[in-house]
């Protein structure tokens, strides 16, 4: 074949490349999946702006004709958001960074410091990821109650840490192991202690994966319901998800306000996600492929 001969397999008669049906199929399914995922959110936002009458008389996906922004103000008051929002924020602000820091230190130690029983310790920590927390709710309640920490921030932060750390150690341990050992050896020759190596060399290198874990952990902590329900009985200590239950009265159902409350609850997590999502994606891949 000469170099000027046409390439019939790659081009149609009009000169355009042939349609790639697999790619088209993938795009269509991607679009359908996106619609399915976005639909509830659209439903919630629309409903949050409707009055109860409108909710009952219009379709769930019809845009609100007369937006009821008042729903947000009423929901804020009725859900006692000034209390629950602060409680959620305090718990997330302490638990998420603290948990990540502890996990990172543990993962560094397990990955980079030769220890007797290091492997066994890792296995024990990983075992923690395998226990569903629902099974542990009653024992946790007894334990926290025993320490007199029911209805306190530590009473909920400590169990959150206990259930969050194993999973984060697992991810970070894999990541730290993939960092060439020469890097920590160079730091050691330069005179860095393990803590300095961890703080000055490993933490900056792991920013993407830390950002990813930060998002996941923030969203999980912010939305956590079951454990908070068991451990926080005083309404003054309730978190946002517990506050939402105030809208589920036996005799009253205000869907507009309920959905306004849901939007306000979900918003901070969404904002955190959008801010860090760039790192989130690169973090997931960097943990997986970096050799």
């Amino acid at each position, binding site marked *: 074949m000469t170099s000027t001969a046409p390439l019939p397999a790659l081009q149609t008669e009009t000169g355009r490349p042939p349609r790639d049906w697999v790619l088209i199929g993938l795009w269509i399914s991607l679009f359908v999946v996106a619609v399915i995922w976005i639909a509830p959110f659209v439903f919630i936002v629309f409903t949050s702006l409707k009055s109860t009458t409108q909710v009952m008389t219009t379709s769930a996906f019809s845009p609100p004709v007369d937006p009821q922004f008042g729903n947000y103000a009423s929901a804020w008051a009725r859900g006692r958001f000034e209390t629950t929002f602060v409680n959620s924020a305090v718990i997330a602000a302490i638990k998420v960074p603290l948990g990540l820091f502890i996990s990172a230190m543990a993962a560094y130690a397990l990955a980079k410091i030769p220890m007797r029983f290091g492997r066994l310790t890792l296995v024990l920590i990983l075992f923690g990821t395998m226990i569903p927390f629902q099974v542990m709710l009653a024992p946790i309640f007894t334990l926290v109650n025993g320490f007199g920490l029911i209805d306190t921030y530590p009473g909920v932060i400590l169990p959150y840490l206990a259930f969050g750390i194993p999973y984060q150690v697992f991810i970070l341990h894999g990541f730290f192991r993939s960092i*060439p050992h*020469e*890097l920590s*050896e*160079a*730091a*050691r*020759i*330069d*005179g*860095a202690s393990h803590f*300095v190596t961890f703080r*000055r*060399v490993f933490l*900056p*290198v792991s920013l993407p994966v830390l950002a990813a874990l930060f998002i996941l952990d923030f969203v999980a902590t912010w939305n956590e319901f079951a454990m908070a329900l068991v451990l926080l009985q005083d309404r003054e200590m309730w978190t946002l998800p517990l506050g939402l239950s105030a809208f589920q009265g036996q005799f009253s159902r205000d869907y507009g306000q309920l959905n306004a409350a849901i939007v306000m609850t979900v918003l901070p997590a969404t904002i955190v996600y959008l801010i860090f999502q760039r790192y989130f994606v690169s973090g997931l891949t960097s943990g997986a492929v970096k050799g």
Partner: protein
Amino acid sequence: MASVTISNVRKNYGAVSVIHGVDIDIRHGEFVVLVGPSGCGKSTLLRMVAGLENISAGTIAIDDRVVNHLEPKDRDIAMVFQNYALYPQMSVAQNMSFALELARVDKATIRQKVDAAAAILGLEPLLDRKPAQLSGGQRQRVAMGRAIVRNPKVFLFDEPLSNLDAKLRVAMRAEIKGLHQRLGTTVVYVTHDQIEAMTMADRIVVLNAGRVEQVGTPLELYDRPVNRFVAGFIGSPAMNFIRGTLQAGQAGLKVASGAVMAVGAYPSEFAGREVELGIRPEHIQVVETAGLDARVEVVEPTGSETHVVVDTGGEKLVALIRRRMPISVGDGLSVAFEDGQAHLFDAESGQRLDLEHGAR
């Protein structure tokens, strides 16, 4: 400058022994290259000097101070790694100043030392860049800069040029050697590349399977290898070996095919002994008459010289010819060994048998 004394050093990983009692004396300001095939223990030995590996037995002393139990930072050494090991999030200047910063040196002194090292290595325009923005050669230079600023007693290099392309490797080789001449610091350098070892070292230590085979200057090793391993390892293309029995009356070496090759003079008590004869490719000459009959199998011109693989009745030999000659595959030639250039090794032990008029 410092001396490094390695005395009867051993390294075991559980039941597996990888270094079997190594003794090396490295003098003040010397450039010593540890060379050997993969897995010979050269990097392990270097890492033991650095303090990155424990020493199972024996002692390592730097300037007569035993350092066996000292942390790397307290040994006054600096190390350059094969993959550079630069801190990726730090700039070139920060990479170079990290050790000094940890040693709590004041900022002005740090600045001055980093600038001085950058000037030596031509890194001034790159001080604010991150390692990812540098080429391989520049990264290697930063790694050296990081070592230089600490002004250590000993530089340790662990195959620093293996990740560079051939041309850059030659350039960096000269640069490291120049640096050593300028600074005069003791250098221990590990490589598997015998050309690097030959070109850079004051003395070479050839290691094999956790043992020292020979220590000597590059030319000592080349001209008078103490055993078959060193003879085969040093030199490129490698030395040719022919197994056979030395004949009485200086008749030569009788090889497997039954032919007898002239190998020059040898003591009469060697007669009847089974040996391996070693001859370097450049010591095989193409002669008009009275040589071994050979058939050309491969011709590899490099420009400056031509490597010719010939078959002399079952024995394959590589000859290195510097003259331009019209040689092609299938040609019949007559080859002879240059007088007094053959090396004889005991066929069993591989140890060198000293020739009366043998290697210089």
